[in-house]
């Protein structure tokens, strides 16, 4: 067994439907007016799990995390969630501390539902709160108000051992004081984890067209930087320091699932548009499924798998991906692992010059990490680091 295979292993389950499409969102989420046949989808997801069980068998992997993401997985019938978790437990040996997360939207949150997920095995909820201000929620095109979001949070706290929620910031007209106030409130409500995303205008979204036509004006870069810095400071002071660019947790409560991604571990993805990265006979594969739910469904029903792409990664590609993910983490990366994956070393001169500029640092254990200053400009940093 190679060293790489002994790493953590996770499963991502994608639910591609939402009740309405948010104007900023470019995730693989679709609104369907006819009712979705959930059990048909469940059957297809389970066929994909069967398929992957074969490809990842005999590797002695222990499953550390399962993540239901979307779209809006809180639209799933709890029985469907339960069936899927059962299928997973038939195929893989599951770590006793397994983290099972489900993303929920306040609009589709009620106690019955939550109880159903909990008894199916979900032990962590990630709630898409997005904002604690009604005006902002309207700007973001959300279907719920702040009160509703707060209610869902309270409910979730009662049902799930662990809870995280998402906020979006750096939207048009957002001032420093406004965000300080909102984030302080959020920190006072936070359980053990928070995801704080700066708004990104993505091609193909409603916000994108608005911005192009000049009807939406994004804050200038300097404001974005100020808000980012402020966020780091407030979270640190509140005991939820950043462990990744946009993720904050009480030490020990980091999302194990996302850590698998960022530590470039092995994971498979089932469902429309889901992605996977895993070793098979010492070759690392990049797999992704058809994005359109109907296409994906018919492919799975026909072939047992809905993959659109399933390609081996070259050492250079794996190396680049490892850096892209690993340097997002405050803990940084192990340079030996980079060498094993990519077959090359990072240029020591570049490291030295970026270190001199204060953007990267070496931890005591030798890991290479990006500083707070560096995290704000990570994309460019990585371009400079590899050549």
């Amino acid at each position, binding site marked *: 067994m190679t060293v790489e295979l002994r790493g953590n292993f996770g499963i991502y389950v994608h639910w591609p439907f939402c009740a309405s499409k948010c104007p900023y969102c470019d995730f693989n989420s679709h609104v369907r007016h006819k009712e979705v046949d959930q059990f048909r989808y469940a059957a297809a997801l389970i066929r994909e799990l069967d398929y992957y069980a074969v490809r990842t068998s005999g590797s002695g992997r222990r499953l550390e995390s399962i993540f239901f993401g979307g779209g809006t997985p809180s639209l799933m019938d709890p029985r469907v969630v339960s069936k899927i978790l059962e299928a997973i437990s038939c195929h893989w040996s599951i770590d006793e501390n397994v983290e099972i997360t489900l993303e929920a939207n306040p609009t589709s949150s009620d106690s019955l539902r939550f109880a159903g997920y909990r008894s199916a095995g979900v032990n962590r909820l990630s709630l898409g709160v997005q904002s604690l201000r009604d005006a902002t929620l309207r700007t973001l095109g959300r279907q719920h108000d702040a009160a509703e979001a707060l209610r869902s949070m309270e409910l979730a706290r009662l049902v799930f051992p662990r809870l995280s929620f998402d906020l979006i910031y750096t939207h048009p007209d957002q001032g420093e004081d406004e965000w300080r106030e909102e984030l302080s409130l959020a920190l006072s409500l936070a359980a053990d984890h928070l995801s704080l995303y700066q708004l990104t205008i993505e091609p193909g979204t409603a916000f994108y067209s608005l911005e192009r036509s000049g009807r939406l004006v994004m804050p200038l*870069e300097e404001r974005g930087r100020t808000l980012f810095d402020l966020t780091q400071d407030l979270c640190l002071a509140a005991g939820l320091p950043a462990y990744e660019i946009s993720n904050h947790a009480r030490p020990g409560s980091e999302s194990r699932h996302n850590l698998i*991604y960022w530590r470039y571990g092995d994971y498979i*993805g089932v469902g429309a548009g889901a992605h996977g990265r895993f070793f098979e006979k010492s070759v690392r594969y990049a797999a992704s499924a058809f994005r359109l739910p109907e296409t994906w469904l018919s492919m799975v029903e026909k072939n047992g798998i809905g993959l659109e792409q399933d390609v081996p990664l070259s050492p250079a590609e794996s190396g680049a991906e490892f850096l892209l993910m690993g340097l997002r983490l405050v803990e940084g990366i192990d340079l030996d692992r980079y060498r094993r994956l990519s077959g090359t070393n990072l240029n020591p001169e570049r490291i030295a010059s970026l270190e001199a500029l204060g953007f990267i640092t070496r931890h005591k254990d030798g890991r290479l990490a990006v500083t707070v200053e560096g995290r*704000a400009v*990570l994309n460019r940093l990585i371009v400079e680091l590899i050549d």
Partner: protein
Amino acid sequence: MAKLSHIRNFAIIAHIDHGKSTLADRLIQLTGGLSPREMKDQVLDSMDIERERGITIKAQTVRLRYESETGELYILNLIDTPGHVDFGYEVSRSLAACEGSLLIVDASQGVEAQTLANVYKALENDHEILPVLNKVDLPAAEPERIKTQIEDVIGIDASSALMISAKTGLGVENVLEAIIKTLPCPQGEISAPLKALLIDSWYDLYLGVVVLVRVFDGRLTKGMRVRMLGADVAYDIERVGFFTPKLVDAEVLSSGEIGFLIAAIKEVAAARVGDTITEDKRACAVPLAGFKPVQSVVFCGLFPIDTGDFESVRVALGKLRLNDASFNYEMETSAALGFGFRCGFLGLLHLEIIQERLTREFNLDLIVTSPSVVYELVLTDGREIILHNPADMPERTEIREVLEPWIRASLMTSNEYLGAILKLCQARRGIQVSLSCVGSRTILSYDFPLNEIVFDFYDRLKSASKGYASFDYDFTGYRPCDLACMQILVNGEPVDALAMLVHRSQAEVRGRFICETLKELIPRHLFKVPIQAAIGGKVIARETVAALRKDVTAKCYGGDITRKRKLLEKQKAGKKKMRQFGKVDIPQEAFLAVVKMGGE
């Protein structure tokens, strides 16, 4: 063989889009040069870049056979001419090969920029001008108003101007008839020794070097041994003929005719525009007037952004040179830029065309160093050197005197723009030699330092005169000047490619302008990047590119890392299009911008 009285040689003068190509196609069609099936639109303009920039670089000709109303057979040679001052010499040779010009004016638009400049050139060549109003089919056509305009603005009689529509074909027959009635026939002595003008030459993949000639006296026959008087080399003629526009072989080209010759000429550089071709064993007594050897006016360095591309640049330059003898290159090495080439061009447009072709046709990204004219330096030890590369500038203490090239320019304009033009000339250190008015036209003669006109004077002139001015120049000699070498420092390090020779009095203004321009074009880095202009260690201008403050992907797209990797690959490719100086990446555009504002 046609009698002189049955030959007409003419050029077409028109502003872009007024219908030159459409009319040429019509004429070819009417006289049966091509079958309808062979007619593909717009036979004349061929090169992409020519099309885009609305200029012709290579002269092209077509021979038409026309049977007149009286049933006599005429040979008409249509010649298409270049249209930019960088190629002024080529234009003058093309016009020298004809006796008349068709002046095409869009009857809805009226006389425009290019038209006027070229009419003036044709008049200087003693051409008879035949005005033709095109597009009379358009509802917006106002032929009577435009006729008056032609008379007022250009100062030629337009009462008998033809009214046509090249598109519908209306009146096009009359053009042919008017050509033989109004334009003069060529003069020449068929029994005299051969005397032919080399109008142009180009390299053809299959034929090798093709030479376009106008025979003035005598006969040019297949198998004849001819001598090019200027180049002083002799060749055996392998083929002669003409274009219809298809290539047609002939036995002979006689006095008055235009056509091509093919001999074992290796490269176009050996067939120089304006040269006189004569028979080797029976040479003409005096060569044709007006032959000028190619003279490079602007020099710059071309270096590949990717040092590994050096060999490809060499090969590409070789290929371009096959077809364009008017630029020169030799290898150059620079400590900062590595291996590249020092190149000489006819002018800035010529430089830009070559650079664009290298980029577009050969896929090469280049650093173009600041262009310069040629200076003469007298050193304190009495030695004289020539200088066109800032890198070669000696220490100030070693220089006794710097001399710069001067030219005498002749400008023609319509009177209403005179004021603006005089102002421009003054701003460019021009010294007026003479000013005379002919009707609504003014003819100016001015002396200028070449440095003041070579970069963007022509563009400025066009805007000052709304295009109603023509411009030509000749070298006159060298005069003293106060020259300095201005360094551009990026992040504290001098960038050789951006160094330039400037007049001390203008250094500050230009330094400031260059710093401002570079500030816009150098991308932001992880640190702030100061940009300075300095002369001899003294900083005269300064700007700063602010540091990048935020560039990070906030979201994680589930496990979709592919998307992030693709983005990274794109960014890396963008970086490859830049060259690193010290720690700073400078894009190709930054160098090109400095080239463009060379004469600011």
